[in-house]
């Protein structure tokens, strides 16, 4: 395909436009997507109802009775240029510390992953928890974060036969990706641990914890710590640790 100039604004039916910042999974591109999403959140354009951020583009849903596609195109082009200029992205969201109990009953595939990677299970845990991951986007299921930054040495193919039920909170590796299952669901990722933190809790004022542009760090905890944290999560008294991610920080 011919070389494109970004950002470009594409049609998506009569009630949506796509603002595309690139054609690759690239933190710098994702920064711009998130910067535009944030800009639309902070200073709403009248008529825009929702946005969906993904790796390299932002889907902008609008009500044609309140704003024409032509006018919205013009306004998005202006906002996007601002998002491009904002080099730090203004997009670094929050950095979340997510406690994970690795191995044992919570991470039944940790030994297999270690064997596949040719290192000890302890080394898998060290490397997996040594990275600040970027939330590129959410999708697949509610609150499911597509994380970027997995150590290449930890890449492990999915299971040949997916499990029928993976409990919510399970932390897994699937190919080049790592992530956390927010809901009980079937799935084929290798499970290396579990977090007591609810990425998705419909009863919480903010039902979904993460958003595109946030950062995540996994903190290894013991089984006892897991049980304690799980109990306080159930009681709703668990305090999730989050702070402003450093601008231009890792990934």
């Amino acid at each position, binding site marked *: 395909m011919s070389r494109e100039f970004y950002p470009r604004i594409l049609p998506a039916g009569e009630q*949506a436009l796509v603002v595309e910042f690139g054609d690759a999974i690239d933190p710098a591109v994702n920064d711009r997507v998130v910067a535009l999403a944030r800009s639309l959140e902070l200073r709403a354009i009248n008529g825009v109802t929702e946005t969906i951020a993904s790796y390299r583009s932002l889907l902008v849903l609008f009500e044609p009775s309140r704003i024409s596609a032509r006018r919205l195109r013009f306004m998005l082009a202006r906002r996007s240029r601002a998002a491009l200029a904002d080099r730090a992205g203004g997009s670094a969201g929050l950095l979340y510390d997510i406690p994970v109990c690795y191995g044992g009953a919570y991470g039944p595939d940790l030994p297999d992953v270690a064997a596949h990677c040719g290192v000890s299970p302890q080394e898998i845990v060290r490397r997996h928890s040594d990275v600040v991951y970027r939330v590129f986007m959410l999708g697949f299921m509610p609150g499911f974060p597509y994380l970027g930054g997995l150590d290449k040495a930890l890449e492990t193919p999915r299971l040949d036969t997916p499990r029928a039920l993976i409990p919510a909170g399970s932390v897994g590796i699937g190919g080049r990706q790592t992530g956390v299952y927010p809901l009980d669901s079937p799935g084929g990722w290798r499970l290396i641990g579990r977090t007591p933190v609810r990425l998705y809790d419909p009863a919480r004022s903010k039902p979904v914890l993460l958003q595109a542009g946030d950062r995540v760090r996994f903190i290894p905890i013991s089984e006892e710590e897991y049980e304690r944290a799980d109990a306080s999560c159930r009681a709703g008294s668990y305090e999730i640790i989050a702070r402003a991610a450093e601008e231009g920080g890792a990934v």
Partner: protein
Amino acid sequence: MNGIEIVTPGPLTTVQDLGRFGYQRAGFCPSGVMDVPAALIANALVGNKSDADEPMPAVLEMTMQGIVCVFHGDAAFALTGADMPATLNDKDIPSYALHYARSGDTLSIGFARAGCRGYLAFAGGIDVPPVMGSRSTNIKCALGGFEGRKLKRGDMLALYGVGGRLKPRKPVYAEPQHAYTSNGAPLLIRVADGPQIERFSKETIRKFQNAQYTVSVQSDRMGVRLDGEPLPAIGGADIVSDGIPCGAVQVSNAGQPMILLADRQTVGGYAKPFVVIEADLPLLAQARPGDKLRFARVSIRNAQFAALETIADTGLTLRRIDEQYTGSLRFAGFNIKT
């Protein structure tokens, strides 16, 4: 308690309203009724008003086959959408009309003669708690609706208090918005351009508009799968995942198109050359496996004209039902006060 007891649930009956909006960025599909005008008319027939807080009181969406239920307390109801035969205490009753049931009455709704989805509205609406701003059922997340799932035998569904105060009004009828043709001429579905239109050659786009597609049996609330002329994408159909609007026509690497609907995923990695215009989504909602579809590409402008036409038609129907109808009508991104 005023309500209905489900005796036979049908294959897929769920509580739905207009949908759960504002959470697509977090990965939640909006859910909601598939045939919006039919559900609006059902609500209007029973005298339910809509307002900003409650754009549409919740109704039951029944797929291919209706429910059998027993009333606990008096209630008013109306059936719209797919042409499903119905009886109240074994007496035939017409759809698109207001009916009254007494406590102990049995309503029995059968297999759709035409169309795919029937809507059952009750005066006052269905009493299920709103979750994240909507009463719609999201089965995948076990969220909203009645316990986050489809109905089953023995469920007791509460209705908002209409009980003893129910006074029969004059007979109320409406005309269906469109005749649901099954096994007849192909339905014409209009599409506007999607984000990856440029990945498809002029020749492919022309073929798409000349071809006839068949609705596959693997179709559901997530999407309508189509059998027919494959749509090869230049350089393959895989893209870096991006957001999916309602009605998006997605093409797999085998070239088979699928139209993504109310229970769609919010992001996906297949090319989307087209998006079905909102005015034709109700038609698609009523297409059943085996039905034939044809497609025509239209401009954004014509898509919006078509939406306004649908709104005018629906608004007219609503006002014929109730001259004092004062709901707001939300459709295709238009929010019209009637």
